[in-house]
């Protein structure tokens, strides 16, 4: 194992100390694992709290700041945070206008955020929750825990964050967040397996010359394995799967996301193919974001998220944001 770490047990705490050193505009509580924008609670503003396992950076800590999240709770690597963290975060960001929990649909995240919501409500915080479940690789059926929350989390956090920054009330921020999730779809592809610090070896075997289609963001294997495909073939496959699940009736926000170990050179080339594939299927792109935003440690590969966006969603997407990983317009 070659990793730039001290010991596996302290990777999350060590990273948080580094975040604190790089971002004085954030309050980083290393011991209790909560990252909060320094000016919180902002008077008159709804608080936005998200969180999940570490290893997906910049999600979520990199999205804390004006125009996006008020606080983030990083768990252990690929493990949801514990309720204590969310309760602390909610208390830190609640100005009296209420708090929205943005939860990715994984059993652990759901259970811990539910427990936290009960505790925070006991302490008098007005709470709403939105569940992100955009991954079309998972068949929605009675038998699974439902679709996973992946790339759409970024769209939900950005758009709900912009609305909250404008002073929208909790019910409005919540309904916008839910709407973004409803019109978003994602699909991911792995070109290599992931190595967690605790295990120290790849979580699954992926021989060179093969790829996994329909992966999640926790190093879990996908649904299907095939012989390696070209960027063009992957784009066609991915866009077909996305459009078959939900054909956008208007322009989309597009996220071409790297899983951590795929260079921007490849991601931009892939983005060109995704644009071509969308155009051929009659889908127009309003805005494009390319980069490593919802990652999976050292996994090579990519995911594509489409969010059908009317004028209002595009306006909120364009609104100023100032976070470590997403920053424009101010």
């Amino acid at each position: 194992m070659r990793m730039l770490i001290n010991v596996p047990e302290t990777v999350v705490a060590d990273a948080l100390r580094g975040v604190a050193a790089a971002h004085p505009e954030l309050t980083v509580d290393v011991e209790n694992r909560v990252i909060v924008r320094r000016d919180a609670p902002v008077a008159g503003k709804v608080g936005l709290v998200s969180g999940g396992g570490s290893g997906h950076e910049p999600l979520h800590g990199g999205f804390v700041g004006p125009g996006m999240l008020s606080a983030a709770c990083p768990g252990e690597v690929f493990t949801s945070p514990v309720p204590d963290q969310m309760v602390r975060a909610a208390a830190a960001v609640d100005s009296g206008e209420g708090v929205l929990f943005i939860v990715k649909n994984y059993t652990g995240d759901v259970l811990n955020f539910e427990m936290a919501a009960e505790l925070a409500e006991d302490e008098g915080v007005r709470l709403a929750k939105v569940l992100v479940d955009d991954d079309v690789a998972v068949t929605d059926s009675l038998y699974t825990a439902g679709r996973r929350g992946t790339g759409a989390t970024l769209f939900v956090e950005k758009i709900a964050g912009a609305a909250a920054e404008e002073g929208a009330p909790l019910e409005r921020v919540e309904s916008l967040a839910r709407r973004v999730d409803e019109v978003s779809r994602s699909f991911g592809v792995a070109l290599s397996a992931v190595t967690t610090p605790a295990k120290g070896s790849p979580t699954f075997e992926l021989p060179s010359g093969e790829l996994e289609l329909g992966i999640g963001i926790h190093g879990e294997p996908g649904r299907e394995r095939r012989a390696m495909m070209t960027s063009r073939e992957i784009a066609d496959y991915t866009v077909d799967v996305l459009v078959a699940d939900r054909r956008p009736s208007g322009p989309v926000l597009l996220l071409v996301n790297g899983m951590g170990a795929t260079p921007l050179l490849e991601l931009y080339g892939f983005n060109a193919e995704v644009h071509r594939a969308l155009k051929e299927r009659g889908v127009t792109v309003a805005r494009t974001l390319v980069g490593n935003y919802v990652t999976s440690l050292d996994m090579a590969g990519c995911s594509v998220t489409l969010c059908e966006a009317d004028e209002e969603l595009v306006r909120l997407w364009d609104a100023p944001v100032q976070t470590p990983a997403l920053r424009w317009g101010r």
Partner: protein
Amino acid sequence: MLDAEFFRRWLTGTAALVDREAARLTELDSAIGDADHGSNLQRGFTAVTEALAKDAPETPGAVLVLAGGQLISKVGGASGPLYGTLLRRTGKELGDAAEVTPGQFAAAFAAGVAAVAGLGGAKAGDKTMLDALEPAVAALGADTDTFAAARDAAGQGARDTVPLLARKGRASYLGERSIGHEDPGAASSALLLAALAEAVA
């Protein structure tokens, strides 16, 4: 009769077993999950052992509630709330009695397992920890001799998850590809019951 000391032995015994088996649990989890079940439970039960050494609650119920709270606060993932709820609910059912009968424990543990099923929305056959816990509940009876039977039933229940298709939890995303692997949650639940049987001796 079972006193607070018995329940401390059970939980510290579970911690020791989890320490010993952590690598195997993580290996099982890497096949169909995300390769951290062993290290997560290890972190949680280490906290349980430390909390019990520091606080030394005087009733069986208080021991279990304290342990469950530690698991919820330290483990995260799905295992934290599920195991935490199992122990907390079992402890609450026992109330503040200084000693409980094996039969009272069996009934309380059944309520704890039902709470786990309610929280996770799973049932036996979904390839989860319930596949080890429910056979154990069925085996538990009015005397401590049944604890060994519960251990055996849980172990068999865990092994019986191998051919199952996962329908809950992260392994469910794999669909057909989850078949052929033992469920890590069922495997760790079998350790909990193994420690229960050991605590009698």
